[in-house]
Every structure is written in structure tokens, then in C-alpha cells.
């Protein structure tokens, strides 16, 4: 196949990657393993699964197509097994539970796994003499002795697991190959694994996934889905499959299965269909760009095997008639290949070829895989779909399950497991069984926090975790005046603008915000008109610009924001006319807009009582960009005052090969210097809330990052040794809690703390429910204290964490603590968040800012394009800095390479109305914007 990289897309990609990689040999997805001269009973077609991970562990009787490593096996320690941080903290050896608050009866989505008394898993080493290479041959030879080994077994070619102990420690078996060669097999017992050993846990997970498969559920990605009863949403050609996520782990007292309902959005059209409709929508000229924008990054399912691939590129220079080199070295065209292999006729010979990069070796295939658009079905949602409010609304109906219904679906799964004979037999053979009722236990609802504003103090109803109403009556801690400001609107929105103004006049006085009448400016509903007005009317004494937009058209919003962030930096607030059009909500909306504007101008809103003195709260969030490169971005914030209302913030962008923590160390040093400047002393306690820790990364954090923090503190001064607490925050957890109220299941109220039963024995960890949701199930946040010299009782750490959940300024409801402290008012001043949406912004907005700043010198390219040519963008890194002394905002602009494009616009978003109940997700800037808007419309 021609490897020419002439296409414009390819060119860009190479520039974009710092180390351009030559596309290697193209492959088609394999069907069968080349296996010369194989005999039918020993050899034959490989299943896709096995081929993918031929080194994986085979599991017995009908389990052969699973392997111990299974999918996603490259992350071996997915559940951070074996990271024991609790043992180093003496003060929580005895107990890590809190005591305050009111008891609440909870159930969860955890199911106990029980094994026979004295159950053990027996691990054997299997040796061959003479040495046999092929794994398939090794297992075929071994299983000629099923009468000795038994029908229940798991074998990966050298390690054998059995549920029973063989008579002798060493068993010798003799087999003969089809070539008549005699082979001696030596089976040696190497280990007797107790039910709680990490290997056993891994093993349970494999067995369980296998059971799901036996129940005829289809594996897509990591989870299993039920294809037989799909929900179809014909309006958008979508299909939703109901499925389950599962993990089996050692919890406080038991090994339990944590199962959750998962939804898979699938689409009834092929990539080619999508290309056709794109072509008809955008025309020839912009067709390729539109395809790249819409398709790259999406996951596709192929028609002929059960695999998923990510589209990494579109190769316009090739088509189905192009040839590729097979593993045996011969050339073949795609048309021929699919005809021969799968009897599939490719009808469109002019379509381009999709390119998918393999991250790791899959069987004998590595590098690049070529896919034919016609044979690929789309999964998931495109940016455009996420922007489509109606679509998201239609989807949410099916995907957001309230507690009762969620538990019912899970109950159904457990029921299937109990009823299926094959499944039961398999479980029996291994000596395992599951409870069909989820565990229940008692949690605590900690006391609601008092909110302070300028000397006043008020309670709020923790039931709703919202104190918007209360704020209205009380002045803010530090309010910024709106002496001179602009209100820009179109003629059609004249009434709306007036309504907003009147409402603001009603709500601001009690908040202590001094507001004059703005300059009201009417414009045509065109981008240029807005910009012209901004150019003409902005003077140095303007505090803030408010624009009322008639539609959620992105280009207009982007142009305005770009101008107001870069060309002429000034706080600004955009509001959708639609948001203001409902009389019943206008006061709430106006309150939120006022709060937000105040933040953007540098005000402080409210605080909660922090009982500890000289305490600095640090928030860190990281994002590792796996899509476009190996960049990591960290947002860093640290509190600067006792009331935790002023913040220092930094953003670190680290390219490949560098350790993120080095940058974080520097941040911590500057933060401490700033603290000293403000407080004339150094903090005596530091709490680090560390977010953005992926599954399996805990070990690195404990062994590398924490020592770095300690080093950093040491470097400040020899006599300086503050008490340090490092807490890992995780919002994407599978655990769900349900309160048993009035015979039914409800979401637990905000303030619910769980520190027993479903926590891990080797950790000092707890869950906090900090927010409330109207629909679906609330997701608790998991806090894992990995280092603690604070000497505080667990109860105090829990309560401090919950307090910090209230310090989230963008929104007057409680949010997870990591969110609270990693946000900084400066962020708000640049990032537009439409009011009335429950969104927690993350420090990644710094990145957003950086990209926004890039617009000033960059091109006017569509702003949400992922594949923007880096050459068109300036190589600049910009740090927003809040000059605490001067009380104003400034930027540090320094030289930096093109990494900015790679960290382009990722924003993590928390939304109550987010369609999947795992509410935390990285969204692209565009999606994020869209969700903001759509959420507004819900209110």
C-alpha cells in the first residue's frame, strides 16, 4: 500500500505530534491466526478475543475465550490492589470511622461474594519436556488429562489454576502430539491462594465477566450489554443498550461485587452513511475537514468482528481497492480481502480508508489498522449530537435511572445469574456464589454548614444543598461595584434586556453590590455588529460587559469571548435570551448572574467556618491527554486566607517525558511564598486535595508525589515542618448509595458520609455525598487519605472535606471538595458559564484560557476543531495570575512549544443533567458550552 502522506490531514498530524511517526505497515483487522498445517481438533480459527491477548490466561470449560488479562488488561492493577497506605498512619490503625451526624440506613450496589469454607485457589506451574512453544498446543496437550486435572481449570500456557488440590505436589503426565512426539508435562503446585489474595481477586473478575458472557451479554469496550432489548430513539437514529459494569474487590469485611447499570449509545448508521450526509450538508469544499471534525476520535464497531477501534485519521489517498500487505507478505486489496474472508461485498469503491492506531500489540498486529467506513458502525455521541439539546433530552429519559429503577435493573442481573443453569454450574465448580441482595449498612448525615457572608451567617436546608435564596438577602464578603458597565442586546431582545436589568436592580442591593445603570446598546444580530460595539464602547473604566445573545450559536459567542479575553481583556458575561424569558425563574437567574459577575470582577461571595487556624487548602487536578499526545496538564490552586476565599492559581503543562509533579512542586513553593506575603507567616497545616488520579496510578502518587511535597516543604526552611495531609479525590466511582426512606429507595441527602463496609481495609478512605440531583442517582465522591500527619480524627477530616464542598463559587450549591478548592475566582472571570446551570468548573479552565488567548494571534479557524494545524497557532503559554496585592488580573505570557493545541480545550464538567450517571467526564470545550446552554433551558 502506498504510504504517501500527501493528504492534508496526514500533514497536519505529523506536525502536531512532536515526533512524527511514519505510518507503518497497514493492517486489516485479523480474522484468523495464520496457523500452518493445523489440524482441526487442535487448530482452527482464533477468536478475536484470544488473538488479541494470546498470552492471557485460559479459563476452563467454555471459558477458553476469556483470558485472565481480558480487555483492558494492560492496566494490570486497575483497582490499585496492594497499595496499602493505612498501615503507615498510626492514628487510624484502630479506627478510621467518624462519629458525628445523624444515622441513616443505606443500601448500596455491592453484593457479597461467598466461597466455601476453607476455600482456596491452587496455583500450579506447568512445564513441558521437550519445550513446546505454541500456547494452544500446550493447553491441548495438558487437557488430554482432564480426568486428572478436572473440568474446571484456568490455564495461560504456563500457570494453571484449579479449584482443587491435586494428590501430589508434583504430577507428571504424558501426552503425544499429532506428530507422534511424546511430551512429558510436569504440573507443580506453587501456591495456595487464600480468597483475599490479589491474584484471586483478579481471577474472580475474570470469572464474573465470563458469566456475563454466558448470559449472552455482548462485550463492548470494558462492559457487557444486553442486545436483545434495546431502546431505540428513531428521532436521532440512536439505540441504547442496557448493560452492566462490574468489579469484584476486597472491601472492609467482605469480598464484594460492585455492579452498576451502564448504558451504551449505539448508532444505526455506518461511517459511510455519516460521510454521505456530511457531504450533503457542507458540500465538497469543506467535506474533508467536516469529516475529520466529526469522525476523528470516535469509536467504531466493525461489522465482521466484535472489536472496537478509535478513528485516528482518515486516509483520503486510499480506497477499498488499495492493497495492503498480509502477514504472510502477499498483497491483497481490501475489496478482495473482505470478500474472501467474510463474504462481504464493499459497494462503494471510492470511499476513503479509516486509520486506527494500535496503542499496544494485539496478537500479531501492531501499528496501524485500516478500516473501511462502510463496514464500521458508530458508537457514542459526536460533538454535534452533544450540542443537540433535544437529543440529549431524549437520551436522558432512558439513561438516567432513579434509585428504585437502578436497583431493580441490578436485581434483574443478579436474578439472571441465579437462574441460569450454566452460570450456576460454573460458579459451583469454582466453589463460589453471590448474594442476591445488596449489602445494607448505616451511614451518617453530617450537620449542614453555616454560610457566612460579610458578618452575617445563615443556615440553609441541606436537603437541597442550595442556598441561592439565602444569598439574596445577605451582602457578599467582598462585592465589586458595577459602576460602569455595558449591556448589549439585539432589538428582538429589548424586553428581555430590560427584564434582566430590573431584576438585577432588585437583587444586587441586598448582596451589597453597588450597581449603576449600564450603557444599554442595541445591535444587529450579527457578530460584526457586536464586535464593532465592543471596539467603540469599551473604555478603561468599564467594569464588565454583559451580552444577551439570541441563540446558542457558537461562532458569535466565541468571537465575543475571544475579543474580550484577549484583544481587550475585560470581565464579560454572556446570557442567552431564552434563559431570561421565563418570568417565574427570572429572580433566581438574576441572582446567579449577579454572583457570577461579582466573581469575575474579583469579588468574594461567602465562606464557611473553618475551625483550624493557619490552614492552607491546596487543590490539584490533572488531565492526561491520551488522545492527541502524551501531554499532561495540571491545575493548581492554594488558599491564601483564613476564610478560604482567596486563591492562588497556576496551570502546569507538561510534555512527554517530564514528570508533572516537578511542576506541581514549583507551584507549591510559589503558593507558600504568596501565603507568607499575605499572612506574614507560613501555614502550619496543609491539606492537599489531589484529583485526576487515574485507576492504577495510586502507587506512583504515594511513592513519588508525596515525597516531593515533603521535599518541597523542607526546602522552605529547616525549621519549617507543617502538618501535611494528602487526600486523593475520585468522583468517577462505581459505588452508589440509596437511602431507605418510607419503604422506598431515595438518593441519600447531601452530607451523607460513608466510612464502613464499602471502603477498603488497606486505606484511610471515606465517601461523601455532597450534592443533590433531581433526576437519576447521585454519585458519591471517594476521598482517600494517603498521607496524614495532621493528627486530626477521621471525623474532623471528613467534616473539613464537607465544608470545602461549599466553597465553590460558581454555583451556590455544594460540590465535591476537590472541585471546591481547585477552582479559583480568576477562572470565572475568563470562562463563560451561563448562569443557572449546575456546573463545577475545574482548573483546566486555565487551559481553556490559554487557548482563548491564542486566538489573538491565531487564525479564525473554527474553534472547536480538534485537528487544528499547530502552525496556525502561536506557541505561547499564558498563565492567568491574580495579583492579590493589586487586586486585579494579569497574564504571564511566556514562550512555549505547540503543546497548547494538544491540550486544547478540555474542560471537565460536572452537571446534574449530564446524561450518563457517571457525571464526571472530560468534555471538549464545545460540548461543555453546549451543555451549559442546554442545562439553562431545563430550568
Amino acid at each position, binding site marked *: 500500500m502506498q504510504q504517501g502522506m500527501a493528504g492534508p490531514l496526514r500533514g497536519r498530524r505529523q506536525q502536531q505530534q512532536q515526533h512524527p511517526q511514519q505510518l507503518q505497515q497497514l493492517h486489516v483487522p485479523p480474522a484468523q491466526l495464520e496457523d*500452518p498445517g*493445523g*489440524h482441526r481438533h487442535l487448530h482452527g480459527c482464533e477468536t478475536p478475543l484470544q488473538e488479541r491477548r494470546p498470552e492471557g490466561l485460559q479459563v476452563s470449560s467454555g471459558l477458553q475465550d476469556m483470558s485472565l488479562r481480558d480487555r483492558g488488561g494492560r492496566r494490570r492493577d486497575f483497582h490499585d490492589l496492594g497499595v496499602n497506605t493505612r498501615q503507615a498512619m498510626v492514628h487510624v490503625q484502630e479506627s478510621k470511622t467518624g462519629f458525628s451526624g445523624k444515622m441513616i440506613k443505606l443500601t448500596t450496589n455491592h453484593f457479597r461474594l461467598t466461597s466455601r469454607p476453607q476455600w482456596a485457589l491452587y496455583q500450579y506451574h506447568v512445564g513441558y519436556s521437550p519445550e513446546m512453544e505454541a500456547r494452544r498446543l500446550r493447553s491441548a496437550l495438558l487437557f488430554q488429562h482432564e480426568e486428572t486435572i478436572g473440568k474446571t481449570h484456568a490455564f495461560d500456557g504456563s500457570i494453571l489454576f484449579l479449584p482443587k488440590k491435586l494428590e501430589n505436589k508434583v504430577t507428571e503426565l504424558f501426552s503425544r502430539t499429532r506428530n*507422534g512426539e511424546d511430551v512429558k508435562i510436569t504440573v507443580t503446585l506453587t501456591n495456595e491462594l487464600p480468597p483475599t489474595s490479589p491474584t484471586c481477586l483478579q481471577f474472580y473478575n475474570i470469572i464474573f465477566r465470563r458469566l456475563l458472557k454466558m448470559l449472552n451479554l455482548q462485550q463492548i469496550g470494558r462492559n457487557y450489554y444486553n442486545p436483545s432489548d434495546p431502546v431505540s430513539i*428513531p*428521532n436521532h437514529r440512536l439505540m441504547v443498550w442496557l448493560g452492566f459494569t462490574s468489579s469484584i474487590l476486597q472491601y472492609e469485611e467482605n469480598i464484594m461485587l460492585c455492579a452498576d447499570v451502564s448504558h451504551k449509545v449505539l448508532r444505526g448508521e455506518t461511517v459511510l452513511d455519516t460521510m454521505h450526509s456530511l457531504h*450533503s450538508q457542507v458540500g465538497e469544499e469543506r467535506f474533508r475537514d467536516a469529516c475529520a471534525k466529526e469522525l476523528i476520535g470516535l469509536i467504531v464497531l466493525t461489522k465482521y468482528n466484535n472489536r472496537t477501534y478509535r478513528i485516528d485519521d482518515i486516509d483520503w489517498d486510499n480506497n477499498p481497492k488499495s492493497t495492503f500487505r498480509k502477514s*504472510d507478505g502477499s498483497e491483497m486489496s481490501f475489496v478482495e480481502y473482505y470478500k474472501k474472508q467474510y463474504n462481504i461485498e464493499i459497494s462503494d469503491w471510492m470511499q476513503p480508508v479509516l486509520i486506527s492506531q494500535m496503542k499496544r500489540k494485539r496478537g500479531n498486529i501492531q501499528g496501524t489498522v485500516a478500516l473501511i467506513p462502510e463496514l464500521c458502525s458508530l458508537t457514542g455521541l459526536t460533538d454535534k449530537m452533544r450540542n443537540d439539546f433535544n437529543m440529549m433530552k431524549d437520551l436522558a429519559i432512558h439513561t438516567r435511572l432513579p434509585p428504585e429503577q437502578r436497583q431493580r435493573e441490578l436485581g434483574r442481573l443478579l436474578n439472571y445469574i441465579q437462574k441460569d443453569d450454566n452460570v450456576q454450574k460454573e460458579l459451583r465448580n469454582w466453589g463460589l456464589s453471590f448474594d442476591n441482595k445488596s449489602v445494607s449498612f448505616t451511614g451518617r448525615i453530617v450537620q449542614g454548614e453555616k454560610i457566612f457572608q460579610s458578618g452575617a451567617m445563615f443556615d440553609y436546608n441541606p436537603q437541597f444543598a442550595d442556598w441561592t435564596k439565602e444569598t439574596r438577602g445577605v451582602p457578599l464578603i467582598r462585592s465589586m461595584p458595577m459602576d460602569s458597565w455595558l449591556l448589549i442586546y439585539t432589538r428582538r431582545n429589548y424586553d428581555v434586556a430590560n427584564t434582566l436589568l430590573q431584576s438585577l436592580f432588585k437583587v444586587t442591593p441586598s448582596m451589597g453590590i453597588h450597581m449603576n445603570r449600564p450603557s444599554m446598546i442595541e445591535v444587529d444580530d450579527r457578530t460584526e455588529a457586536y464586535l464593532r460595539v465592543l471596539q467603540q464602547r469599551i473604555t478603561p473604566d468599564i467594569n464588565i460587559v454583559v451580552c444577551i445573545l439570541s441563540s446558542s*450559536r457558537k461562532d458569535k459567542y466565541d468571537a465575543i469571548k475571544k475579543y474580550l479575553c484577549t484583544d481587550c481583556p475585560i470581565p464579560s458575561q454572556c446570557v442567552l435570551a431564552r434563559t431570561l424569558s421565563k418570568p417565574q425563574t427570572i429572580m433566581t437567574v438574576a441572582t446567579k448572574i449577579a454572583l457570577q459577575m461579582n466573581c469575575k470582577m474579583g469579588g468574594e461571595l461567602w465562606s464557611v467556618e473553618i475551625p483550624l487556624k493557619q490552614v492552607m487548602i491546596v487543590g490539584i487536578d490533572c488531565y492526561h491527554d491520551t488522545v492527541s499526545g502524551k501531554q499532561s496538564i495540571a491545575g493548581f490552586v492554594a488558599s491564601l486566607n483564613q476564610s478560604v476565599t482567596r486563591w492562588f492559581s497556576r496551570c502546569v503543562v507538561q510534555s512527554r517525558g517530564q514528570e508533572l509533579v516537578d511542576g506541581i512542586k514549583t507551584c507549591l513553593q510559589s503558593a507558600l511564598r504568596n501565603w507568607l506575603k499575605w499572612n506574614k507567616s507560613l501555614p502550619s497545616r496543609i491539606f492537599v486535595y489531589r484529583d485526576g488520579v487515574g485507576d492504577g496510578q495510586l502507587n506512583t502518587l504515594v511513592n513519588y508525589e508525596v515525597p516531593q511535597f515533603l521535599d518541597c516543604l523542607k526546602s522552605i526552611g529547616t525549621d519549617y515542618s507543617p502538618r501535611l495531609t494528602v487526600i486523593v479525590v475520585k468522583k468517577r466511582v462505581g459505588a452508589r448509595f440509596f437511602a431507605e426512606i418510607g419503604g422506598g429507595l431515595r438518593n441519600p441527602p447531601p452530607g451523607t458520609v460513608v466510612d464502613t463496609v464499602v471502603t477498603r481495609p488497606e486505606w484511610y478512605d471515606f465517601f461523601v455525598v455532597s450534592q443533590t440531583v433531581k433526576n437519576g442517582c447521585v454519585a458519591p465522591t471517594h476521598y482517600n487519605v494517603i498521607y496524614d500527619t495532621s493528627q486530626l480524627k477521621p471525623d474532623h477530616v471528613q467534616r473539613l472535606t464537607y465544608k470545602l464542598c461549599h466553597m465553590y463559587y460558581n454555583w451556590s450549591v455544594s460540590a465535591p471538595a476537590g472541585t471546591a478548592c481547585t477552582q479559583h475566582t480568576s477562572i470565572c472571570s475568563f470562562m463563560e458559564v451561563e448562569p443557572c446551570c449546575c456546573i463545577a468548573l475545574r482548573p483546566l479552565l486555565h487551559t481553556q484560557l490559554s487557548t482563548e488567548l491564542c486566538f489573538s494571534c491565531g487564525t479564525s479557524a473554527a474553534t472547536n476543531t480538534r485537528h487544528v494545524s499547530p502552525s496556525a497557532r502561536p506557541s505561547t503559554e499564558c498563565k492567568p495570575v491574580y495579583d492579590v496585592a493589586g487586586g486585579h488580573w494579569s497574564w504571564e505570557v511566556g514562550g512555549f512549544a505547540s503543546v497548547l493545541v494538544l491540550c486544547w480545550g478540555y474542560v471537565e464538567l460536572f452537571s446534574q443533567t449530564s446524561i450518563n450517571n457517571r457525571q464526571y467526564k472530560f468534555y471538549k470545550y464545545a460540548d461543555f458550552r453546549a451543555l451549559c446552554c442546554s442545562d439553562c433551558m431545563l430550568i
Partner: protein
Amino acid sequence: TTENNKLCNWMYCENFKEEFRQIIKFEPPLYKQRYQFVKDLVEKYKPKKVADLGCADCSLLWMLKFCSCIEVLAGLDICANVMKEKMHTLSPLPVDYLQPSERSLTVTLHHGSVAHKDPCMLGFDLVTCIELIEHLEESELKKFPEVVFGFMAPSIVVISTPNSEFNCLLPRVMLYRHPDHKFEWSQAEFQSWALETARCYDYSVEFTGVGHPPTGMEKVGFCTQIGVFFRKYPQSAESVQSEKPMEAVYKTVFKAVYPSLKDEKYLQNAVISEVIFTAQIIKHRLMSKRQEYSDDPERKPKFQLSMDCFSEYLGKVVVEKNMEPFVSGNEVYIPLRTIFSFPKVNRLCGTFEKLCKLIAGKVTLSSDGSAVMFNIEHENEEN
């Protein structure tokens, strides 16, 4: 004479080995050549119902499921475990659910012996026995012709088995190619058995094979010898059904019914989905046309362009007067006739009446049932 033959052959081979000390390797591998042979046969005769006896790990069945003529696939093996190993590869894929195919397909795996008769094996067009008979015990082999040719009586039977004359060219083979082989036949042995069987059950047989011998050694014949049997008498429908009422002895270990448009449930889903999607497209077009006249001057040229391409993609839609979609108050009406004129809908339903029948009660229609109706009251202007 058999013994004699074997001896002669052995010597002949030994001589040959002296001359060419090389290992014979087939390209593509022999097992693939056997499967390809079956596939070619399927392509040629287009059987609807195919059974594979001794299906082992189902790899032949997996290949055959992609053959579009086949509607029923069955596998039979004496060993349930070996079938279970890979049986999930015969399950429908996610995409099979997303885009149900025109044809229907049912795949069933049975656990049982070819020496026993079971009614589930009746009515097949093609029965394949690839590398099967050499694994049969003498008693089983004796019953085998009666079961396959007498009872199942498909139009075509394919039987492949090792050719023992070739073994001398396979350096590591001592007696048989596999320890489980009960015998391996020479060409003459196989052919005489096959001819006798064919005569007995009124079939004709053709001999061929895969795995060509090296040049100069043509005498040993194919590495795998194959007999293709054709039934000489026509199958009468009643002979399948009525004559043989009997008990099932096989145990079904796996059954997969592929989603198909032949199934009303899937067809209905597909039609509803296509109708609503098409209607949405038309509505979108209509609404954006209306928007053009309103306030957004920036957008106008872009829209004009996209409109033209749009209709081109959707095929030439014949727009008659009564087929025009229209807006009335808060409702948009899209005539079913218009929707029916779209190629995809047309292909799915066939007739307009069928369309109406399938969507009845599932799609909101106008009071006279002639148009799809959308309420646009709660939609914002941008969507």
C-alpha cells in the same frame, strides 16, 4: 491386498524421500484449503440449510455464517466441551443488531453422535463431514452411512479424510496423522467405501481433494481426499416431515437466532426508525427554508448550498403537489407519500400499504393518517 498396497506405497515413498529431503508445507495451510473447498461448494450450490458433522471448535461454521445464502447452520459433535470453547464466536455481533440483515440465520449446536438419528438433522441441503470419519470407531462407521445418507438424506454430502498414501511424505507421521485416528484410508479404500455407500443410498459421488502432491509424486494423490456426494432422487416434502416421527437424542448446547428483517419485530423497528429519521430531515429542510426568510442574514448563502447537495444525496425526490410538507400552527405535517418516495424507506417496506401497516400506532400521524406530524411548539428555533 490392502496390506500389500501399503507396503508398496511405503517403499515408493522411501525412495522419494531419498531424493527430496524436504518438508512438505502447504500454502495456504491444509485446513484452510479444506474450508475453502466447502465455501466454494456453498457459493456454487447455494444451499439454505447446512450442517457440519464433527464441527469441533466451530471454525468452519464461523466461516460459513458469512455466506449469505445460508439460513440455517447446524453443528454436531461428540465432544460438548470443544464446541463450547468457541461457540460464542457464532453469536450475533452488536452490528447484527444495529443493522439487521435481510436474510434470517439460525445457528444451532448439538451434542451427539453421528451414529444416532435425530429429527433436528432433517431437511438439510448440505452436510459436511470434514476430517470426521477417521475418528469413528468401527461400530460407528458402520452406522454412519445409514444416518447421513439414509436418514438425513441431504442433497449434497461432503466427506474428507486423510489419504494414507500421502503420509510417507509427511516426515513426522509414523502410523496416523493424529493419535485419535482409528484408521487412515488409501485412495482406493476411500473410493470403494464411497462408491458402495453412494450406490446403496442412491447418490452419485465425485472424488477430488486438497493438498497437491509434489511434482513427480502425483501418484500418491491429494493429501486430503474428498468425496462429494449428490443425491440422485428429488426430495419430497412429506418424506422429511411425516415419515420419521421420532425422539430427539441430541442435546442442544447452543442456539443463536440472528436479528433479521424477515422478523416483523426488527422490520418494524427499522421502518419506524427510518420513517422518523426521514421525516426529521424533511422537517429540518422545511424549517430552515422558513428561517431563511426571517432574520439571519449571515446564514443565507450557506443554507442555499447545503440544500442543493441535500436533495442530490437523497435521490431525486419527485415532489407532487399533495406531497409537499407543510406547517400548520405549531404542527409540521410530512406526507407519508413523500417519506415513502425515499429509497431507503421504499426498499424496506416494498409497498405503501406495508409502510402504513408497520408504523400504525407507533408514529404520530395526522388525523387522516396520511402524514407524519411533529409538534414544534417546544422546540427552540436553533434546533
